[in-house]
């Protein structure tokens, strides 16, 4: 870990301005991912701005009947919220499928969105990694990539995004709210929040330098059955091989988002039109552009089969 300076933020816009002003600054909230990465010198911030004191720890109704989740709401509290459990169960289920009880107590809503990939080469500073060290190459391509992306990847990076929560938020069409260094607010649709790797896999989100997440808002309740299936190599405390978040309406229409297949939660609205025709048709459209490796091509039939199980449960 490299030495760093530290301050406690008192006011959101001030924090954003300080972050934009200070080269190498980073925000810290729960720290469940950042501190690990700092110990390994994968992240080497020179300055930490602790946002835990900001008043972003509430879950409040929005005027249009949705829910506004403060950036600092802990994963445990979000999953347990009665309104979330009742109206946005896919989000509760996704949260509880992630990490461990101890980590969920500490991890925040914004931090969960900003998790870095768990690609093993990203975690080993002896190995080339374009995400960690732009231009150094991708070790996962041609290396060990059973866990890595099957769709939306590039020649520069095949990493996946590890979040379960973000998959549910994508299914719900949440909006990420931010404050910018100039004090202005911005709303970023979750669909545009995480980026595909392209030539710059080190740029993972739509956030500008210094821009601070203040909340995530959910639209008014969608009704329907909310399901989240996470498939993994052990029963708990493991990242998804793939996951399926779905909201299925009584008429068979609905929404489907996937985790564990791309650098972002994977949802293609056009694929959802195929829901009445079943899992195979939806998967065919969702993963039409998939380019799996010989180690992770199982993810394609796995998505199809898992979605089929999800739809069967939704039908009751």
């Amino acid at each position, binding site marked *: 870990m490299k030495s760093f300076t530290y301050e406690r933020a008192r006011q959101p816009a001030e924090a954003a301005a300080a972050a934009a002003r200070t080269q190498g600054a980073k925000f810290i909230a729960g720290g469940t991912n950042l501190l690990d990465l700092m110990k390994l010198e994968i992240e080497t911030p020179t300055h930490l701005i602790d946002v835990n004191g900001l008043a972003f720890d509430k879950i409040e109704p929005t005027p249009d009947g949705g829910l506004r989740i403060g950036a600092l709401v802990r994963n445990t509290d979000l999953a347990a919220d009665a309104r979330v459990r009742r109206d946005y169960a896919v989000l509760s289920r996704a949260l509880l499928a992630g990490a461990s009880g101890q980590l969920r107590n500490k991890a925040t809503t914004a931090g969960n969105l900003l998790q870095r990939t768990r690609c093993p080469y990203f975690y080993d500073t*002896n190995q080339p990694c374009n995400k960690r060290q732009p231009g150094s190459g991708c070790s996962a391509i041609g290396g060990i990539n059973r866990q890595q992306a099957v769709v939306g990847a590039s020649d520069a990076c095949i990493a996946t995004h590890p979040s379960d929560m973000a998959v549910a938020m994508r299914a719900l069409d949440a909006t990420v709210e931010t404050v910018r260094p100039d004090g202005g607010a911005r709303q970023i649709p979750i669909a545009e929040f995480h980026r595909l790797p392209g030539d710059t896999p080190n740029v993972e989100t739509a956030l500008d330098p210094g821009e601070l997440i203040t909340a995530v808002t959910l639209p008014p309740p969608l009704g329907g059955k909310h399901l989240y299936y996470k498939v993994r190599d052990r*029963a708990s405390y493991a990242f998804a091989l793939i996951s399926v978040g779905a909201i299925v309406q009584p008429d068979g229409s609905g929404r489907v988002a996937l985790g564990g297949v791309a650098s972002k939660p994977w949802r293609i609205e056009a694929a959802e039109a195929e829901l009445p025709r079943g899992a195979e048709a939806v998967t065919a459209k969702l993963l039409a552009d998939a380019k799996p490796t010989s180690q992770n091509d*199982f993810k394609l039939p796995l998505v199809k089969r898992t979605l089929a199980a999800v739809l069967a449960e939704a039908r009751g």
Partner: protein
Amino acid sequence: MKFDTPATTSPIDQLKVIGQPVDRIDGPMKTTGTAPYAYDRHDVVPNQAYGYVVGSAIAKGRIASINLTEAKAAPGVLAIVTAENAGKLGKGNFNVARLLGGPEIEHYHQAIALVVAQTFEQARAAAALVRVDYVRAQGAYDLAAAKDSGKPAPGFGGPADSAVGDFAGAFAAAPVQLDATYTTPDHAHAMMEPHASIAAWNGDKLMLWTSNQMIAWSVADMATTLGIAKDKVRLMSPFIGGGFGGKLWIRADALLAALGARAARRPVKVALTRPLMFNNTVHRPATIQRIRIGATKDGTITAIGHEGWSGDLPGGKPEAAVFQTRMLYAGANRLTTTRLSVLDLPEGNAMRAPGEAPGMMALEIAIDEMAEKLGLDPIEFRIRNDTQVDPEKPDRKFSQRQLTECLKSGAERFGWNKRDPQSGKVRDGRWLVGMGVAAAYRGAPVMKSAARVRLDSRGIVTVETDMTDIGTGSYTIIAQTAAEMMGLPLHKVVVRLGDSTYPVSCGSGGQWGANSATAGVYAACVKLREAVAQKLGLKGDAVFADGEVRSGDRRVPLAQAAGEAGLTAEDAIEFGDLAKKYQQATFGGHFVEVGVDAATAEVRVRRMLAVCAAGRILNPKSARSQVIGSMTMGIGAALMEDLVVDKRHGFFVNHDLASYEVPVHADIPHQEVVFLDETDPMSSPMKAKGVGELGICGVTAAVANAIHNATGVRVRDYPITLDKLLKELPEIG
């Protein structure tokens, strides 16, 4: 005490304390955080500095240059040790790769430097400033590719090859044949406590507080490596947070702590970080195994062949995966071979049931496959080929062998008769359900073991031996032994372990610890009883009970017998040739029920039972803990544990506990363990054996066989992850 004739009745057979399921006597210390683990020993020596290990970034090659300028200038840095400045170092008897590499690099994350600083954080930060230029060399990292270059290599406990009769002819002539190849991956010990040491020099004498299973071996290897006399090394390892064989030897933490302390002229503590542990230390090597079985139509094995391939660094040893096949089933024509290739991966070495754990992973699937070919129940097939003699040397009997009883009683208890022999037929909601069985077999080796016992004027017996407790319960069963022998309640016995100033024990390994170490304490207690009797002038009829020694009408409290000076006795148990005359081993039957998700192919173990026959069970509670721990580890091997090799660069990619997955609580169902009544007078005066490794031998194949029964899919390539099942599962709606 020489043990060369079968045990007769002794005070140990009273079973007042021995054989009772008492709580572990060190339990309160562990649960209150007061048990002194190596890295926590802030109190033993003042002024401790912190060392941080730098691991090689390449697997094979050499260091062209190493630049310490920036690191030396970093805040708090006291010293940096490298091969350039460490002086001449030897290599321990039990190490294959050097513990401090450079300029030659033998494997990935081989230690190449230790940075010593005032604080841990300073040491870690400075370690990242050590600049190294490497010259990479080509290495061999792929066992399958290197397999054919393998050479015959003996393993611990046997020669490379064995042959009886005409295997090739009998196999060719057999009406029913199986010829299948199985693979097992590299496994990590992944114990909770990392390798950790504190070193302090007192003149030319080294004090080392460490985490180590084998005190005397490690004192010798430490002395050899440092080029000093053995009596200049004192090693203390009273508590160990898991070892599984990974701490049988000194590792880089111990050597570098000693070198760092010498360089910094103050005590230094070193723990290996978790990401370093997987490639810096040792692991269970991957294997390729070919098994051929020929049988008559009624299920009598006529030919059995087991060939094993593994790899290690030059000078290393094979994973002896075929050895149990020499012993487990009858059959007139037999063949086993062990081949070792050179691989430039990290050093392979012993892990819980070395040889037998991966060997049984393959053999017990093969037996299941053969039973299926024969149309026989897999239990019936095993029983039909059971033997009471060493199949390679039929005049040599097993001292005790209750394999059939284990399987029969297990089947009854588990409800084996409810198993549908047709695979893929049982459904419970979304789950495809199946049952599997496997035999358990593990040798019961014995080792010389010494102890010292002192009776003091408070009537307390203190046992000292350099035996270790790696979580197994050694403290408790040693206390039970001394209490039984001296006629004392358990709380009147104090046990001190893991210090090289104590008499040399068998140490913890190969599941020999429980039987051999307690037998050593037994021997010392026999001497102490003699000393008490002699002091009091008693004849041979003295009885030790209830804190007294009694003879005729005379009753003397032990405290009084000890007097102010106390009485001390020391002895060792030394084993004669009973182990040669009789094959001594432990047996069991593993029963597993799994559910396989019909959609995702995720496997969940639903229930398990192990029935074990392993001599006298010294403490059923701690023995059960050993077996359920082994069963858990066996589930890991069946379903998830896999050190994944990057065959381009030669290292285990998943080198942390997020990516090297071991079972979590949610993976482990109800586990039942039954010990059959057994005493083995050939094993030792304790009539005991060991169970710490028996539990992992076979259980993994029982999981695999249950998956086959559930799905009809036969996977011969561990671990059985869902991607290997998915393709062959039926489509779902």
